[in-house]
């Protein structure tokens, strides 16, 4: 069971978190064509290795976090508040 270092609560076990999928996808503009929306809704990369993911600290501070995780080794890199990613 992974240990995810929440910037607010400290290292907490994976069971306190809810997985939120790929952190790289961006919600398109409503006026974007069907293909772009289909891509956003249905298609996800499934990388072997480094990945950026969303995790919600549901049984903790309820922050949505952007977590860098290696899908092979489960090594966790940086963890940050998603709301601060400000792009």
């Amino acid at each position, binding site marked *: 069971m992974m*240990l995810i270092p929440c910037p607010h609560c400290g290292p907490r076990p994976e069971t306190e978190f809810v997985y939120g999928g790929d952190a790289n996808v961006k919600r398109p503009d409503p006026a974007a064509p069907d293909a772009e*929306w289909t891509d956003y809704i249905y298609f996800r990369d499934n990388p072997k290795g480094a990945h950026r993911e969303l995790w919600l600290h549901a049984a903790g501070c309820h*922050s949505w976090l952007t977590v860098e995780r290696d899908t092979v080794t489960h090594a966790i890199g940086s963890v940050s508040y998603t709301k601060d990613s400000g792009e």
Partner: protein
Amino acid sequence: MSARQPNRSDTGGWLIDRSRVEIFTFDGREIPFYPGDTVASALLAAGETLVGRSFKLHRPRGIFGLGAEEPNALLTLGAGATLTPNARATMIPAKPGMQVSSQNRWPSLKHDAFGLLDKVKAVLPAGFYYKTFMWPASRWMTYEKYIRRMAGLGPAPRARDTEQYARRNIHCDVLIAGGGPAGLAAAEAAAANGQSVILAHARPSFGGGVHSMPQGPHRRWFQDTLAGLEAMPNVRLMTSTTVAGYYEHELLTLSERVRDRDSAAGTAPTERFWEVRAGRVIIATGAIERPLLFANNDRPGVMLASAAQGYLWRFGVLAGQAPVLFGGDDSLYPLARALKDAGAIVRAVVDLRSDPGLVAAAYVADGGKVIAGAMVAKAHGAKQVSGAEVWRIDEGAPHVQETIPTDAILISGGFGPSLQLHAQSKGALEWDESLGAFVPGVPNGANCSIGGARGVFDLPAAIADGVAAGKAASLPERDQADRPTAPQPWELPNPTGGIRFVDLQNDVADKDIALAAREGWHSIEHVKRYTTLGMGTDQGKIAGPIGLALLAAATGKEVAKTGLTTFRPPATPVTFGAVAGGHLGEVGHAIRRSAADAWHESQNAVFIDAGLWRRPQYYPSNGATLGEAYRAEAAAVRAGLGLVDVSTLGKIDLAGPDAAELMDRLYCNTMGTLKVGRGRYGLMLREDGRVFDDGVVFRLAEDRFHLTCTTGGAGAVYQHIEHALQVLWPDLKAYATPVSEEWFAAAIAGPKARDYLAAIAPELDVSNEGLPMMRLAETMIAGVPARVMRMSYSGELSFEINVPADWGGHVWAHMISTGNSYGLTAYGTEAMGALRIEKGHVTHSEADGRTTPDDLGLGRMASRKKDAIGVRALDLPALQESGRKQLVGLVADDPAAAFPQGAQVTAEALGDQPRPSLGHVSSYAYSSELKRMVALALLKDGRALHGQTVHVVSLIMGVAAAAKVTDPVMIDPDGERLRG
């Protein structure tokens, strides 16, 4: 040596206390033992060589190993509620009065009826189960009974387990798995550096390999080291504790068998299950000896040489009176000498090497017999080894040398590291050609393997490993000594052509693997499942590497490239009881109770789970059965007045300057225009356009909304809102606060609801003008500040009353006591369901994750004038196509007809022909209003079917009923009753 313990020697016995003899029973016979014995060592000492029958072929089997790798000696402990099947005799400490039984035999161990199967091995090849029983399908039922009787290990206990179990969580700097010399040295070094250390050892006493050796300076080292560790406050020593699982980021699970260690444990649990989060892990679980392949290598009396060595030095037990030793390295010779010194007549050492070297020469010089360049090709005897047929393999074609009379063949095919924990942690594995074994490669995570667990078998070198690992220093170079190399176990010829077992527990022979390879199974994972190789409770600890090498040979691949099967926890079996710990029965999960729960309970309400909540399903005082009660309760609502506890509905407070904007983005319908004090029914969608949740929303202030959502959806809706606020639109200024538990909520419904509300809320103007539909008002009820919301789920005139949760019980009791003169009837979820089905209101049975607003007849709610989650997807072509399932009502033609659970809907009645399904029934109930069954159903293009007759069918229940398709709103379509 005594008549009752014919194989007990005066030599050795480091772990036993010879001052006292105790007794346990094996299949009813008394077995004497010394404190410190395992069940296996006591059985061996008593001359009980036959201990079980094999899983598939029912061949006689004896004790083969010394520890957790034991494939044969699986026994049943106890009886009744404390029965434990498949206990490893090698791991179970003998206890006075213990009741031990052999397994998998009928009627008795010595005369097993299914033993005949062995004579027809030809009909039980690899893939037997797959091939034989797949046709015809109708015969499966017949076969199954026979298979279950034939192929079973121990019986499952029938009574509820009366043992106590516990779970613990703990952290440490260093967890060391294995308390042999390497592990002890590591613990000492780590603890000396001030680290908190857990040292877990599977046996009741530490020491491991130290106890399989004669007297020497290492014993003093062992005693001093252990005494030092016992005195250190930062060291937790855990015996009878197996490290069973290694999970991500150094979370390990340990099973501590408390009763194995402390027989008079008082109130202590039988077993404790530990979750340990370690800073780093040192794996010192040792090595496992590999067997050798020869015909009948499964006969009782064939044993691993290291096991025989262990039985001698640990327990003072001889594996046989006249053994033959067979292997390919120098370790055989000190064992032969020790056995001889202990009183055995060592018949011969059969050495695979044609030139065994100096150690063997010295043994011969001392009068020992060595047959070099030879192998044991076949074991003679059935229930006990009687002879070893020796063939020469060093010159020309293999030829018979002699058959040596013997009662034990002690075999050594070299050692391989115990890889379980390293592999579970997803560490890499490397093939070591000189060992002929896989060894740990680059670790994944903060761990290292030391001693035997990385292929370091020499005692001083293993201790040096431990010291280095304890200090977190790099490990010494592994010694790659040149030794005369013998053929590997899988390279041996089979000159007699007899059956050679690779996996003793599952009766997998070498030719089964060859057959699997010929039939095209080339992946070790497939071969494992096809042949059942390594699928027993021993997890293939012995069988795995040899099976792998045989597969590599059969498919012409290198062993290193064939790879091992995936290692999964637990490394050794853990009882279900230990994993569950105290989480059993009513305390198995948390229960959420409404503030009125005590009243429901006082009425003997029958409860139903709704998420973690428990809700009254019906009140038996309204009718004896569920069916009678809910019909009466629903009828009471339609005719007069009902009261229902709706506290479990999710409630979220949404506040902030951008709250209205956020509401418009969360709901597919318009919310931002809602006036303060008014409510609106809303639909939330997932981004793929499917209905996610629904509920009524009230605007409390310009910048504040009160959201309700479904009981089951409350948690997910809150996460969804936080996702919108933190991920999608972090610039929006709003806060969401879950307030479900802050409020107690009850709904009153029925034609008398207004009169009754006027009575309990005298300060409130309850008229149509004073409190119209979808309005919220604040007032006092029973002396408590309350919110009254005029809304309806039942279709009747109805009000929902919210009060602070702490006052809920008080207000509910007040409502019950004042409701008598109005004929107030409390109703449960079943009646609530019947009422909403009649009105066509959807729940998650209809909003099942596949349906869009339009599918549910709510398409016009989705506003295209704003951006809201899920609305854009509604315009994707796939959601615009015809042929989607649409919500309809179904009304039974025949008032006596029953609608079955899980029903499909067809256009024509079922005859002999299968009929296409138009869709399915999502909810159904008896309509007290229409006096017949009604249902909501999702039918293909269902709205075009209104007025037609369809058939509600269930092949499983054997029921079919004709019904009319209608609008989902089956009663009071114009909503007259809502006005009251």
